[in-house]
């Protein structure tokens, strides 16, 4: 019989959006000096959510000055214990307002409420809790007896995990005594602005956190501002390169968390049902808008047919649609531009001779959507095996021996993440040891924890976020 799940939408009423948002500088919201604005859309139906200011050079100047003032007069001088208590307070308010933030994140980003509610928001709160606890324990972190803050951190974050990336940036910076100017992504600024309200609610001293909304020009002006001591960027490898070039010859410290083309290696002795789940969450979690996604499945030839059969059956059960529906597994693509890029790359995949498959899947009429897609018959030379698609598109390759799996997995300029599926512990460790990737998940995928460092090898960036190692990027 057909068991049709009725719509189960999470209520939007928990979110109260303002018509327009200013920049958050020195503890207050203010319009951009230029008066320029941009509009943030709901990618699920292309309706307008709110207007936000576009920060220009003057605004950047003001924000950096406010951050400098706060760092030198208040935040840098405060005891670690007191700084920690502010961060604990922020963590608690995030917990209290978690449903509001989850719904808003789903509206602005297009990701399913199931993920914002059960993954993003709990991790955001946990990240603040974790770094709150470090603030008065820096002497025990193995970074010297008395680690000092760097000063003002310029932070630019992407649209795929808007609030979580904010937490990854702000929590360690503040815990170590830095102040920040953060720019959220152009298409997903809204939860960062609610976070600014949370800073006010927490009585965080003005200037400690400043939020500048805008697009690429705003980000460039911020990271190139001579008054910042530290730049932290998460986003594309291309922009990462530009930033690395721009800080050359300055004293600015830099950490970059960039693209990836993660390999998910499935050995023939893997726990197959769980491996299939891991493949699915590796590439379809967050519509594949994940820099560490397992976008290349490397499956041992002896089990390839069985794995693919099960994988397709499983993918056919994914539920695509309204991000606010509690049963949605695959939400909307974040923007028209991203959808265009996914289309271009998948068309190239077909043109290059890979076999494309998607399940039967109703696509909503408005909004930006892309059905889960699997390419088989992919070779290392295909663009879908080399370029980051950043969408729900999996490229399947096969291998015969562990050596071949490792060689293929490493045959990419990226090196952010990898997965290894086997019931044999020694083989798992052997493989992990040889993978040139900053995070290796074994018999799981896309797991994050504030205590666990995250970051890439090679063109996936440098520096680590999370864990004790995440402090290092913010102390001198």
């Amino acid at each position: 019989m057909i068991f049709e799940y009725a719509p189960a939408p999470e209520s939007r009423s928990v979110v109260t959006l303002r018509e327009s948002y200013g920049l958050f500088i020195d503890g207050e919201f203010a319009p951009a000096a230029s008066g320029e604005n941009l509009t943030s859309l709901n990618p699920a139906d292309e309706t307008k959510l709110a207007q936000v200011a576009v920060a220009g050079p003057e605004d950047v100047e003001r924000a950096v000055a406010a951050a400098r003032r706060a760092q030198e007069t208040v935040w840098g001088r405060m005891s670690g214990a007191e700084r920690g208590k502010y961060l604990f307070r922020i963590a608690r308010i995030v917990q209290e307002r978690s449903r509001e933030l989850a719904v808003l994140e789903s509206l602005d980003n297009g990701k399913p409420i199931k993920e914002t509610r059960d993954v993003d928001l709990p991790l955001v709160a946990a990240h603040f809790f974790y770094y709150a606890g470090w603030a008065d324990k820096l002497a025990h972190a193995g970074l010297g007896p008395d680690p000092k803050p760097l000063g003002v951190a310029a932070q630019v974050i992407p649209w795929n995990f808007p609030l979580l990336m904010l937490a990854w940036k702000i929590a360690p910076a503040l815990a170590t005594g830095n102040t920040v100017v953060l720019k959220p992504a152009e298409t997903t600024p809204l939860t960062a602005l609610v976070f600014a309200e949370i800073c006010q609610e927490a009585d965080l001293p003005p200037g400690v956190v400043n939020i500048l909304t805008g697009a690429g020009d705003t980000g460039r002006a911020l990271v190139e501002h001579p008054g910042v001591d530290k730049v932290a960027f998460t986003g594309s490898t291309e922009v990462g390169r530009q930033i690395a070039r721009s800080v050359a010859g300055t004293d600015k410290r830099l950490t970059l968390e960039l693209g990836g083309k993660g390999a998910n290696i499935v050995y023939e002795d893997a726990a197959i049902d769980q491996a299939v789940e891991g493949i699915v969450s590796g590439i379809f979690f967050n519509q594949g808008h994940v820099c560490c996604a397992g976008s290349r499945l490397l499956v041992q030839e002896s089990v390839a047919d069985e794995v693919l059969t099960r994988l397709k059956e499983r993918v056919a059960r994914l539920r695509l649609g309204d991000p606010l529906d509690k049963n949605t597994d695959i939400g909307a693509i974040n923007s028209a531009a991203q959808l265009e890029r996914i289309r271009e790359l998948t068309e190239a995949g077909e043109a290059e001779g890979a076999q494309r498959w998607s399940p039967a899947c109703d696509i909503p009429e408005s909004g930006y959507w892309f059905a889960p897609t699997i390419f088989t018959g992919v070779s290392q030379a295909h663009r879908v095996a080399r370029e980051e698609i950043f969408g729900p598109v999996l490229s399947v390759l096969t291998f015969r021996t562990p050596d071949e799996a490792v060689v293929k997995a490493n045959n990419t300029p990226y090196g952010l993440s990898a997965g290894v599926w086997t019931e044999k512990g020694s083989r798992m460790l052997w493989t992990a040891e040889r993978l040139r990737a900053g995070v290796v998940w074994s018999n799981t995928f896309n797991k994050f924890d504030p205590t666990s460092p995250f970051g890439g090898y090679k063109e996936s960036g440098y520096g680590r976020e999370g864990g004790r190692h995440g402090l290092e990027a913010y102390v001198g």
Partner: protein
Amino acid sequence: MPVSHTASAPEAMTDRALRAFLHGLPGVDEVGARARAQDLSTRSIKTTAKAQAIDLAISMVDLTTLEGADTPGKVRSLCAKAALPDPADRTVPHVGAVCVYPDMVSTAVEALRGTGIGVASVATAFPAGRAPLEVKLADTARAVADGATEIDMVIDRGAFLSGDYLKVYEEIGAVKETCGGAHLKVILETGELVTYDNVRRASHLAMRAGADFIKTSTGKVSPAATLPVVLVMLEAVRDHRAETGRYVGVKPAGGIRTTKDAIRNLVLVNETAGPAWLTPDLFRIGASSLLNDLLMQRTRLTTGTYPGPDYYTLD
């Protein structure tokens, strides 16, 4: 619906072949299995879907009484409840079967005559299964002779845990033969098998030996029908179907007390084995107090007000 309940006669098996088969099954990663079950348990089943699920769940209930204190009176009133779960609402479907001890089968058969509701009997020295094979077969034969349409047997967990898979296999085969036309449900008692690897192996063992249903638990051991256990068993029947073409049913029993528990099980069925299993022919829920919770939730959906337990018959 392509349902075949006629298991082919169990193949003759050697100990070595059986062991190789069972140990060759892919492993189950505990954390991953739990995570999948947990993920599916967040499905939100509302309004029309909930109404559909509740009626389906009612029709899948094996309404059970397995107490030392059972009497003909108790069994007769349970049967009345099975046939007419809510005297105030005739649109409520009847349950799948009534499940009793062997000595109560004739009472139940009498009470259910003409209702179309099956009588399931536990057998084979339920719940421990610690009796000689001839006793177990006699137990089964008597229940079948008295009119049981379904037999819920327990496996020899001691034999399974000591690696004597062939003994378990042959015992199931012998009971199956004794069942004649009655459907055989094989209780794995997953709470004593402990690991999901064992649950998967025992599931395949039982199916190979001729089980029409695989059932989680006796209800006398905790934990019983946890969601990850049901998930692993649903994967097993799905895989068995893919390999042999034969549909085997699944029956979680023990610990399913609320509508929410029941609906979570139905979601697992829907998204693991698939919609073909969403029928009382292939999925049952062994329970007693669950039925009244389903009825109360049904009333809540139709009237919009929360009902109280005093408005539902005890049995």
